[in-house]
């Protein structure tokens, strides 16, 4: 974590003067290739400088009004170029081929790829530097740190619950270490029954779900009705206690300030605490 902090600072020390020298000005026409980046740009207050977004960029509502350039995998170069961007920002899902293509066409491309909550918080500062709003970036980061502190203080000590989070049913997929979901569950005082899978998005065995008997089941696909009907799952503690919940996945998979909303929701669902 400390090392990462240093690395990001070093990166900034290099990026910012380079960017400033190359551009000579603050980026005015920004294209985002990732929903999380779009959200964060608006959160930083530079939403009016965002000229292009992906077809998945649903939040905030104003983002949906910007020109659509496809998505991280199917990037429509023509539309992107016609927007005359001076900065393109994406995350780790951005395809290397596209990055190469864009740079070959003389467009500045930056990728921000946080994988933990702390990295997300620090990336706000990075993003702020990239778009010429360092103050806003640092302020947002500080705000998030504070909120995180407050939320984790509300987690009752010593009352852990076994949690299963379902990303998909056929095949059964859950979230493991390396994913935001797993981290949030742990921060919220839950015990992810898939903690030993070692992968962020593993396929999981239904038998293991039954064997490990989660006390809370979180569904991210708006499939509660279908899930409640599964015959084998009726015996789970979660089902008996009526602790099967549907959540908005966008709060849990995107590296944005809304992760803290997700954390709050989890704390509330797991411990019954009103937040």
């Amino acid at each position, binding site marked *: 974590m400390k090392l990462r902090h240093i690395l990001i600072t070093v990166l900034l020390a290099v990026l910012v003067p380079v960017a400033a020298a190359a551009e000579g000005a603050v980026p005015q026409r920004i294209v985002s290739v990732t929903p999380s980046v779009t959200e964060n740009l608006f959160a930083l207050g530079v939403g009016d400088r965002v000229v292009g977004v992906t077809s998945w960029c649903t939040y905030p509502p104003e983002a949906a009004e910007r020109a659509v350039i*496809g998505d991280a995998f*199917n990037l429509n170069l*023509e*539309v992107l*170029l*016609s927007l005359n961007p001076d900065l393109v920002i994406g995350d780790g*899902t951005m395809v*290397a081929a596209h990055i190469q293509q864009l740079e070959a066409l003389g467009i500045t491309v930056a990728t921000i790829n946080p994988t933990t909550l702390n990295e997300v918080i620090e990336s706000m500062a990075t993003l702020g530097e990239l778009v010429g709003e360092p103050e806003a970036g640092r302020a947002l980061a500080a705000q998030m740190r504070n909120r995180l502190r407050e939320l984790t203080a509300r987690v009752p000590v010593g009352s852990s619950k076994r949690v299963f989070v379902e990303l998909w049913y056929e095949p059964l997929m859950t979230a493991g270490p390396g994913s935001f979901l797993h981290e949030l569950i742990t921060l919220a005082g839950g015990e992810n029954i898939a903690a030993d899978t070692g992968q962020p998005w*593993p396929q999981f065995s239904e038998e293991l779900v039954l064997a490990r008997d989660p006390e809370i089941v979180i569904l991210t696909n708006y499939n509660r009705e279908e899930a409640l009907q599964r015959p084998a799952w009726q015996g789970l503690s979660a089902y008996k206690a009526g602790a099967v919940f549907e959540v908005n996945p966008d709060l849990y998979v995107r590296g944005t300030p809304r992760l803290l909303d997700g954390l709050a929701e989890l704390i509330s669902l797991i411990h019954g605490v009103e937040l």
Partner: protein
Amino acid sequence: MNTNRGVLRGVVLLSVLLVSVLVAAAVGSVSISPLNVGKMLLSRVPGISVADKSWTEAEELIILRVRLPRVLLAAVIGGGLSTAGVLFQGILRNPLADPYIIGVSSGASLGAASALLFFIPAGIGGYGALPLFAFAGAVGAVFLVYRLGLAHGRIQATNLILAGVAVGAFFTAVVSFMMVLRIQNLQEVYMWLMGSLSGRGWRQFNTAAPYVLAGSAAAVLFAPKLDVYLLGEDTAHSLGVDVQRLQKQVLAVGAFIAAACVAVSGVIGFVGLMVPHAVRMWVGAKHGRLTVYSFFAGAIFLLAADTLARTVLSPIELPVGIVTALTGGPFFIYLMRRG
């Protein structure tokens, strides 16, 4: 088909191809006036200077750096896959053979998937080396199929096809297995497997075009011998054709062209299977005409398919492999009803 009518059809085909290239360059997600497109292209021809540049720099970038290379690449790959299809259908004496039948696609997929999922993340070779990995995989698979398909040191068409199916199934399974292990890079692999020209520019064109064009030119040279070969292996031998050597050469050239195509575009299906059929119905089975005209027709076909792929749901781009596959079904139904 007498010579004059045949040559005329060839001229028609070539003209249609040139027009298609120009039309495709003028059409896209961003609408740019065809007049400007024409001027932009002309201004790049050495010696011609165009007065009154009424287009923006972004538009020039779009046409010359994004659309034009993609259009040319589509033409070259469409032509290459079709020519490879002609070669394989001829040498295996099987009208259902496609350029991927002896392991090219599964081998290339394995090479590309290995690169995307393991080598490149581990720092072995940059992203630019992806076509090399794919090509190496294709060549390796073909070699394996060839060895398996030999019986008593001679190539047997049936054995070869069976070996191709076996190796293909195995390699595909390995790729699926790898994708389960490395599920986070799934999308990149899928994108590659589906066959797409999205994001391909001059770099990919310069990588693949020389080989595809060279291979396709070589394919034409096989034409007279392939005509004789169609009569049967024993007959061909008795007419002075070294059958074993011809088989090795044709398979090698065909696999080479197909591998070069797949290496930059992924697996685009149906082009190599359908175009030779259609052209054969139009100009006959003599391979001289068949190889050349299949190249032109294939170029036109893939050009049209890719243009559709990038405009019909704009700004979303369909993988071109889906468009070609959609045309496959009706085409074969048509063939069935005709024959």
